[in-house]
């Protein structure tokens, strides 16, 4: 069926959005084949965002973790605005412009996708409004101000759990009401069809580059890919370059929060999520016995979401990818580990992937090659980490 990954995905949306998404799908498929569009996209990814990003051999980290495996970092943290999010927002805002839209809207949790959307909107001269949960806005005052500096309006969502999922609800309502002039820039590989495909398409540049780069460096395919998974856009971006390589094992790292048993986590597949429908698609969803969506917890706002992109649910069911989780405190260890061994402060999201390496290397054979997607840098998290560790700055 169209827009499905096995049984997952789909288009569970109000009727108002059905023709809107159909138009979006058609325009997207057309532009994908349009050489001018691809040229323009490549130009901005290269000259503006800073692609290609290096695939860096983290020698000291590899040694520190026992020296069995060779660990490579895909340096998405070096991109403009500090994370992989910009790959998708440049693509989608350019798409919106080609569709004749005057306004873009976005949801944001930590503020990274909001900042990346506001950035692309400023770059292409479109109006931008970003929905953000009231609780998130309180935790991320700096990003709220960054979005304002970039000319965006920040709309605070003060209902429900007042976090990312509520911001998405509100953005979907706005989109249904104003679709004539508005494009909704979804930040991760989720939402109704065609969004999971669109976001994957724009993020697949990560996997394409990494595929070529690892061949140059090692003349063989990696043994493992590791990426953190909130909605799952950085992970699907990396995985997509290796889906045809049977020997590559893909691992998505979810937020284990305070541990699965505590109930305070965002581990949909590796924790206690069940199949369900949220925000337009069928996937694994954290919910109670009655189907009400649960509140989630993670030290990292970018992983703090009750559902996971539908293609991840599918890769999991097929057995093509494995999903694990890392707790808040393990992630904080990863944060320090990379900072101290390599001089790279990772985003708390990416720190989950780093932290998992400690477990993964125990299973590795000599000379196994691992690629970790370093999806973002940690500047945004420095104050938060200091506070968590009781350090006054």
């Amino acid at each position, binding site marked *: 069926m169209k827009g499905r990954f096995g049984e997952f995905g*789909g*288009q*569970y*949306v*109000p*009727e*108002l959005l*059905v*023709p*809107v998404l159909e138009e979006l799908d058609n325009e997207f498929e057309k532009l994908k084949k349009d050489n001018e569009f691809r040229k323009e996209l490549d130009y901005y990814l290269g000259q503006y965002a800073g692609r290609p990003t290096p695939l860096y051999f983290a020698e000291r980290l590899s040694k520190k973790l026992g020296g069995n495996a060779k660990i490579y970092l895909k340096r998405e943290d070096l991109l403009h605005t500090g994370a992989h999010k910009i790959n998708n927002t440049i693509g989608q805002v350019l798409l919106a412009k080609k569709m004749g839209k005057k306004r873009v809207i976005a949801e944001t949790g930590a503020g990274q996708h909001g900042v990346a959307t506001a950035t692309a909107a400023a770059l292409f001269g479109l109006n931008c409004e970003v929905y953000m949960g009231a609780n998130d806005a309180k935790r991320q005052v700096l990003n709220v101000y960054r979005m304002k500096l970039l000319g965006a309006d920040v709309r605070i969502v003060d*209902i*429900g759990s007042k976090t990312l*999922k*509520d911001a998405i*609800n509100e953005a*979907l*309502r706005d989109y*249904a*009401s104003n*679709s004539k002039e508005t494009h909704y820039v979804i930040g991760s590989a989720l939402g109704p069809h065609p969004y999971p495909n669109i976001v994957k398409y724009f993020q697949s540049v990560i996997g394409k580059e990494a595929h070529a780069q690892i061949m140059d460096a090692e003349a063989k395919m990696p043994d493992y890919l590791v990426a953190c998974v909130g909605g799952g856009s950085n992970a699907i971006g990396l995985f997509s370059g290796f889906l045809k390589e049977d020997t590559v094992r893909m691992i998505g790292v979810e937020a284990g929060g305070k541990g699965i048993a505590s109930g305070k986590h965002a581990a949909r597949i590796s924790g206690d999520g*069940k*199949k*369900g*429908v*949220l*925000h*337009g698609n*069928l996937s694994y*969803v954290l*919910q109670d*016995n*009655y*189907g*009400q*969506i649960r509140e989630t917890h993670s030290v990292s706002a970018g992983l703090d979401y009750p559902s996971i992109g539908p293609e991840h649910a599918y890769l999991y069911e097929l057995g093509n990818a494995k999903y694990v989780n890392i707790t808040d405190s393990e992630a904080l260890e990863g944060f320090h580990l990379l900072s101290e061994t390599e001089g790279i402060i990772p985003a708390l999201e990416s720190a989950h992937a780093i932290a998992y390496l400690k477990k993964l290397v125990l299973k590795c054979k000599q000379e196994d090659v691992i690629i970790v997607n370093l999806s973002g840098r940690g500047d945004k998290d420095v104050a938060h980490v200091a506070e968590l560790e009781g350090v006054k700055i």
Partner: protein
Amino acid sequence: MMFVPYVCCGDPNLEFSAKLIRALARHADIVELGIPFSDPIADGKTIQMATSRALANGVNIEKIFGMVAMLRHEGIEVPFVFMTYYNIVYAYGREKFLKMMKEVGVQGLIIPDLPFGEDPEFENMAENEGICIIGLITQNTKKERAKKILESCGSSMFTYLVSVSGVTGVRDDIDKESIEFVKRIRKLAGNKKKLCVGFGISNKKQAEEYHKAGADGIVIGSHIINIYSKYINGDKVDETRSLNEIETFCSICL
């Protein structure tokens, strides 16, 4: 003209909802029973607030099935339709949900985030159980698709026309586009299909205009909540005043 009021079950408690349903049943042709969902993307502020009050006060699907069974047992005969989001049905089990609806006496089902054709298997299950899945048509629904929705099984009860391009919630006026939309769908539907218009309706004048344009009925949701929500305090509500005002509204509006 058909009057289809909406009740958000459990706002602020189920005892009050039952009283409200009894009061509305005297005037209504169909009563729409809202099963609260934590993330109601098709709803505006009023229903969002009602939903979160209901959930905070502990309502769930089992209790709602229980309330419906009780009302049927009392002899209330007005047709009921459930209005809820797909995950509630999915989590309960699609077939089990339909069977329970049949068992307690709910004839129809509106799922705003399950557009026509998205789950054909479920549509078939409903048809087999004799449950009407009410199709929704919006101003931007394409003609061929609108035709199919008008011919779908659930249209034997009615087809829901979403009057505005947006979410639920009271609007003071009707714009020309909404009226033209109702006329257009009436023409497409012929004279036998029942069409009810919803989203944004709160008064007699609006109802009459839609009626003139060819609608058989109107759905009123947010306005009913507005009537009693000012009397809510925690999980309590001033029932006498609320029900008096509901009664007044029904007698003026209908």
